[in-house]
């Protein structure tokens, strides 16, 4: 009996992973068609091969594991983590075939970076890739961003109180609800409407700034997808510097700020509850931390006399800081400028912003504004308790879609995840330093990877140590899935191995 349940678990995981893989394969048709449109025959062939391979793997998986069972929570988490890895490997095939990668590990680094909406890359000679490959890179971040949001909200709607607890770290066995579909459709609707509006606006701005008309809307789409998904890729190695345009940058900034918002918030505001945007704990937290870290950045930049006037300070300082805080990673300065001009304080302030990150259930990374808000309010409540008479009952509240009570358990769950993030950032920083990188650089890059930001100060290069590449990839993965899925996956593997050994011993 136990044996049959156990094998069924593998079938569920295999089947749904297969389905996700098929989805990825179908997605590859988009860059393939892009290459065909631009008459990039060799690139189109590369994508055709990749489509065939990915679909083959997906269908084989689905065929051998076919099952009618619905996944439970544990299954869903293992599927999330596992299919991420499968997708990472297969999505790297077009990269490898393009000849722009130094190794397969580098290709996996780039696809992991894409799906996790980080934005660091090891791709060689980005300025000379095909339109198809550029479409693929940007599409990866868009889909990666959407996918994780669907997953996050799936748990949120499981059951009101319980699902929320799951989101902040307490696991519980639950079956996926059928209204997952409803939520998913909603998220896609908001995203697609913004995709349309964003591509149009950015495309028009591109044309106004001198980009060729027949390419402008591709640029528009790429920048939008990069911004909305808080990914940070751009079609050229200069990132946003390529465009030399404050209007394009500001428009992109609007989209990446919006992309960093909780999808539940989007839903609330779009359903008529517009006041929510001013009352929501995440938005309040975000506003405060953005303005605070930005002031710190300004302090650093003014102290070093980096920029000559307020407009330059704003255009470079604010853009990078907000790009970091929303964990986007688009940049209008060169990577090494952080080190050579901004200096350690500027880099630290940006690192803090990146570490805090975006909102929960969004495409962004980092601690998440919700947790920061909860922890700060938790501390404030504790202080109030200390100052109040012994018998007084002091309860804290925070507003997230509706008023919620600040229980000790909620604060604890938030704090646990924040500590885990800090641990991840620290390990990455230590490994970087062990390889000789200066502390500010190593910390900056590690936080950038772990928070899925993607701003680089120059550490991320094809020539960087292999172990460091792997460390950053793990950081990106764990940061994106917020540890739960990854731990569940490892837990599942460990349990399976143990029960396999037990059966062998019993036999």
């Amino acid at each position, binding site marked *: 009996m136990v044996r049959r349940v156990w094998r069924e678990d593998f079938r569920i995981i295999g089947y749904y992973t297969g389905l996700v893989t098929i989805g990825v394969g179908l997605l590859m048709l988009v860059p393939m068609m892009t290459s065909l449109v631009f008459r990039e*025959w060799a690139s189109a*062939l590369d994508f055709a091969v990749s489509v065939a391979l990915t679909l083959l793997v997906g269908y084989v998986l689905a065929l051998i594991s076919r099952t009618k069972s619905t996944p439970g929570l544990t299954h869903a988490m293992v599927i999330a983590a596992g299919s991420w890895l499968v997708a990472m490997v297969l999505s790297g095939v077009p990269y490898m075939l393009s000849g722009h990668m130094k190794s397969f590990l580098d290709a996996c680094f780039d696809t992991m970076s894409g799906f996790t909406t980080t934005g660091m890359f090891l791709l*060689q000679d980005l300025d*000379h890739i*095909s339109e198809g490959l550029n479409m693929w890179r940007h599409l990866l971040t868009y889909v990666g961003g959407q996918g994780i949001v669907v997953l996050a909200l799936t748990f949120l709607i499981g059951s009101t109180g319980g699902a929320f607890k799951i989101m902040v770290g307490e696991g519980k066995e639950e079956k996926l609800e059928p209204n997952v579909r409803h939520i998913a459709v909603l998220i896609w609707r908001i995203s697609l409407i913004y995709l349309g509006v964003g591509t149009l606006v950015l495309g028009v701005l591109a044309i106004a700034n*001198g980009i060729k008309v027949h390419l402008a809307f591709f640029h528009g789409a790429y920048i939008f997808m990069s911004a909305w998904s808080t990914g940070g890729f751009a079609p050229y190695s200069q990132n946003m510097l390529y465009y030399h345009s404050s209007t394009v940058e500001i428009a992109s900034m609007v989209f990446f700020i919006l992309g960093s918002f909780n999808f539940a918030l989007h839903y609330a505001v779009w359903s008529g509850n517009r006041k929510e945007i001013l009352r929501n704990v995440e938005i309040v937290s975000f506003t405060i931390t953005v303005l605070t870290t930005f002031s710190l950045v300004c302090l650093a930049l003014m102290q070093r006399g980096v920029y000559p006037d307020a407009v330059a300070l704003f*255009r470079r300082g604010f853009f990078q800081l907000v790009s970091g805080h929303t964990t986007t990673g688009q940049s209008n300065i*060169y990577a090494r400028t952080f080190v050579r001009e901004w200096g350690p304080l500027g880099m630290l302030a940006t690192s803090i912003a990146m570490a805090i990150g975006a909102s929960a259930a969004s495409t962004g990374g980092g601690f998440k504004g919700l947790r920061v808000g909860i922890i700060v309010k938790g501390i404030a409540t504790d202080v109030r308790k200390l100052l109040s008479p012994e018998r007084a009952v002091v309860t804290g509240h925070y507003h997230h879609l509706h008023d919620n009570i600040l229980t000790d358990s909620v604060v604890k769950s938030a704090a646990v995840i924040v500590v885990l993030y800090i641990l991840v950032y620290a390990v990455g920083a230590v490994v970087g330093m062990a390889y000789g990188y200066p502390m500010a650089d190593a910390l900056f890059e590690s936080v950038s990877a772990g928070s899925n930001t993607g701003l680089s100060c120059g550490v991320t290069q094809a020539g960087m140590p292999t172990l460091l590449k792997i460390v950053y990839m793990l950081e990106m993965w764990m940061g994106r899935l917020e540890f739960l899925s990854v731990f569940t996956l490892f837990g599942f593997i460990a349990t399976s191995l143990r029960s396999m050994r037990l059966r062998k011993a019993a036999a």
Partner: protein
Amino acid sequence: MKRLWVALTVVALAVLIFAPVPVRAGQPLVLSTTELVENSYKWDGKTVSFKGEVLQDLMVREDGTWMNLSDGNNTAMGVFVPKDVAMPVIARVEDYRTIGDVVLVTGVFHRVCVQHQGETDIHALNVTVVTPGSPRENPIHLDRVVWLVVLSGLLGLVMWLYYRKPARATKH
């Protein structure tokens, strides 16, 4: 006789010292993006030379044109050519099927350009096309065509197996 020699020496020296130097001496060192960014304070405000392939878009604005010149692996610099500077005809710009013209620019490097709100750029004083562009070869690998055929065949088989109705009751 001696006075004649002295006079000639003086005249020769005068010519050497005061004669205008040929314009050739104006060519500054060609620097790379990496060098300029790493040592931006050193080169800030200096006249430098920069050489790179013209990327896809020449952005014409009201006061000049922006070019992005690629000078290496993932390094490119923005060059602003003001309206009053002569811009040569750029026959080819980079794309997947074309190698763009390689252009040599002499201009002033700005660490944080005031005109462009803090951008790291070069304002060109002189632009010349050094190497004209050419079509780029992107050969189709025959073995990949073979792979495509093989994989598609296998895929077709697996999909057929997956989608066919498990008519176990009627078969046998």
